[in-house]
């Protein structure tokens, strides 16, 4: 076995450990499925942790503005993988904070949609597929991240987390974010997707010199210039690129702190 395989095994074992800890300690958890490459790997890891089962609901907080390919993927694989899928809509744009820049405001719908879904089902924990290497504020996250009553993130007062001991005690009405792939990189995700043969949405592969590196709402997500039409080619591209992964996600770049404002309010 190569060092690269060992490394993927280590990442996988750590994620399985996190999944099992969360499931043992929380009463009602759900997995947030954004249909992207990361959350597909996450579902795969959950099935590894629970021997082929996903023993909790899978939640898609739907903005209604995803790509058609994403909806097709969701409908097909939720059946094939036997998921307990819950689809919940987001509130309309008009209800969002008008002081936010336009794309950020649009993305804020997802935060509100999530809040409504949490209330509706009474989940005390949601599993989210964010990674430290994606974005600066996500690098600050804990594996178990307790949220305030409004779903807000108090980045200044995060509790310590060490030796795989996680903070899981919450005030009534608050919820926990669980991040089982926080320690993975974009490159790891693709190498693992390839090794495990995990299905992906074709939008990630280059067509006419462009591909999506990160998938979000159609109106605020843009493709990057690329010739990578297979996973192998994506791996080569990622080894040399200096373009950040989320450069095609408009809400990250509207103002210096737009993404941070979203996250403090409870965005993923």
């Amino acid at each position, binding site marked *: 076995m190569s060092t690269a395989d060992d490394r993927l095994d280590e990442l996988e074992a750590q994620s399985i450990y996190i999944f099992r800890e969360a*499931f043992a300690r929380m009463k009602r958890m759900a997995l947030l499925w954004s249909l992207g490459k990361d959350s597909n790997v996450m579902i795969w890891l959950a099935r590894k942790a629970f*021997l082929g089962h996903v023993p909790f609901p899978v939640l898609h907080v739907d903005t209604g503005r995803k790509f058609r390919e994403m909806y097709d993927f969701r409908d097909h694989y939720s059946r094939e993988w036997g998921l307990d899928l819950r689809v919940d809509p987001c509130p309309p744009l008009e209800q969002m904070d008008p002081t936010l820049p336009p794309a950020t405001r649009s993305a804020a719908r997802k935060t509100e949609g999530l809040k409504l879904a949490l209330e509706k089902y009474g989940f005390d924990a949601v599993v989210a597929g964010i990674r430290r290497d994606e*974005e600066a504020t996500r690098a600050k996250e804990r594996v178990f991240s307790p949220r305030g009553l409004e779903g807000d993130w108090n*980045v200044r007062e995060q*509790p310590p987390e060490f030796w795989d001991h996680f903070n899981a005690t919450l005030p009534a009405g608050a919820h926990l974010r669980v991040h089982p792939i926080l320690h993975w*990189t974009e490159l790891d995700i693709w190498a693992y997707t390839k090794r495990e043969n995990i299905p992906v949405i074709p939008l990630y592969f280059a067509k006419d010199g462009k591909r999506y590196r990160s998938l979000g709402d159609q109106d605020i997500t843009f493709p990057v210039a690329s010739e990578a039409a297979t996973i192998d080619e994506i791996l*080569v591209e990622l*080894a040399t690129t200096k373009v950040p992964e989320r450069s095609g996600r408009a809400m990250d770049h509207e103002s210096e702190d737009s993404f941070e404002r979203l996250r403090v309010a409870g965005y993923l």
Partner: protein
Amino acid sequence: MSANVTVLPSAPVDAADRQLVRIVIVGHVDHGKSTLIGRLLHETGGIPAAKIEHLKAISARRGMPFEWSFLLDSLQAERDQGITIDTSQIRFRTPSRDIILIDAPGHAEFLRNMITGASQADAALLLIDAAEGVRDQTRRHGYLLHLLGVRQVTVVVNKMDRVDYDEAVFRAIESEIIAYLAGLGVQASVVIPISAREGDGVATRGTRTPWFTGPTVLEALDQFEPARAPQELALRMPVQAVYKFDDRRIVAGRIETGGLSVGQEVVFQPSGKSAVVKTIETWPVPAAGEEVTALHAGNAAALTLDREIFVERGEILSVPSARPRATRRIRVRLFWLAEEALEVGTTLIARLATSESRATVAAVHEVVDPGHLSTFESKRIGRNQVGEVELLLSRPIAADPHRLNPRTGRVALELGGRIAGGGLVISVLDGEAAQPAPAARHITPVASAVTREERLARFGNAGAVVWLTGLSGSGKSTLARALERRLFDRGALVTLLDGDTLRAGLNSDLGFFDADRAENNRRLGEVASLLKGLGHVVLVAAVSPSAQARAQVRAVVGPGFFEVHVSAPLELCEQRDPKGLYAKARAGEIRGFTGIDAPYEAPITPELVVETDKLDLAAGVDRIEALLAEAGVFQLRPAAADDTGL
């Protein structure tokens, strides 16, 4: 961070066989960590052009010169204050390693974040400002590296430009820090003089330090090895859960140390149950003949056993010849992060691997301020201090001394639902009563013929001990009697144990000296525990001034112990003086009277405080009744399920 900076010098993709090493940079605030990291990223292959442009724009907008540290301090709040608040991670490559750099804040305020970052590291760079030398926080971080188990440490003396690259300055710092670390059992691999701002000694040998012949920072990074899960130690697999999938009972966990194979005999501690490993389960289901038959340290495991035994989360799987000890008493060297000091009587949750247990501090042996290198006599471990304590656990857990197994020889401590400290198990003490008489070894307690469930079904309540502690005259007995009436009327099996009543008979041989008080307390605890076991809700009203004695009772009783502090100001108690005792104590007729000439150690974290100067009697009774109801004492509950209900 620039965690979205994965800096890869146009390297071939084949780089699959590179070692991945996690490194933390620690040290005093303002000693230049973020600058060193910015410099390292720059020297090892460049940072995305877009990122640099973005940071330049931010610097310009703030009217500041370009700072490498802005790369890391990417949160708005950090840019405003100029210090790193939380930990972030950055990747880059040296000639033979993939490095994950964990930046940890140097400010004392954020020690919890430094610990969060450093606990994930294989190796550490300890940074010291040449102009300032070794500081409090340098020492504190050195000490924490030792406690966190980071064994590979390189010291970097930064800002050599500010001392004109003076060798004498460097050598003085070098010998001081080497001596300090050696005292902790940490050996610094090398001490390197650099200027991160100017670039000397980072990627290239500084021409301004010709007297230094050692490696550059990059060369030192290249020598670090990943810390592997210890294969060579005895098998330890803490149980995370027992699942019931597809008609199989599956014991799930992670192998922390050692290895395991199908057909091996294993034993679970603390229950002592044994079985043989039948299969190792994996998904996707492997083809016939391709099944996994052995696992090693670091692997996630899912096992089936050859027989139906009841094991639960928190137990540790091992081999019969080298099993961890089952204990209710451990001595721990710990770091403490909470505002509230840790002292005798403090009640915590202790987590060792996957086990969870209530723990009470029974003794504080030593307190160290690692910043000042001083050990002092104290009964309290304050925030950011280090110390040694003895913990009494509410139920037995499996534990190893840290020197035998670092993974199952360390605990995290939770206060008020939040991780507040952690430490190494220095020794695993006997879980029995503090001083068992020699004859106790030959005693075999006889189990009751009536089960706990049968008692529950008949009485409608679970056994519990409500321990009312407080000054004489605070209202304990009054409250206990009213509570007894209330619980009796609701149909509970309730028993009142009054300290004075017991002193009249069972404890009539005891006085009020410290040793007698302790024995009085012990007997009260044992009697209460016995009655609890028979299904009684036992109400104990006793001054019980010693926090340590109460902690011991808590440990004896185990779950279902409710410490209630019945509190009233001393002046009020003295004014009430229902038994005329204060008057006698004041007159010198009684010696060692609690509150007058003997101390009362108020509980730090009781289950409840009832302030009898502010609440009327009925409200006090309401609170205690609600506490018991909330804890499920009055509910008829089925026996605990033996799996997660899947």
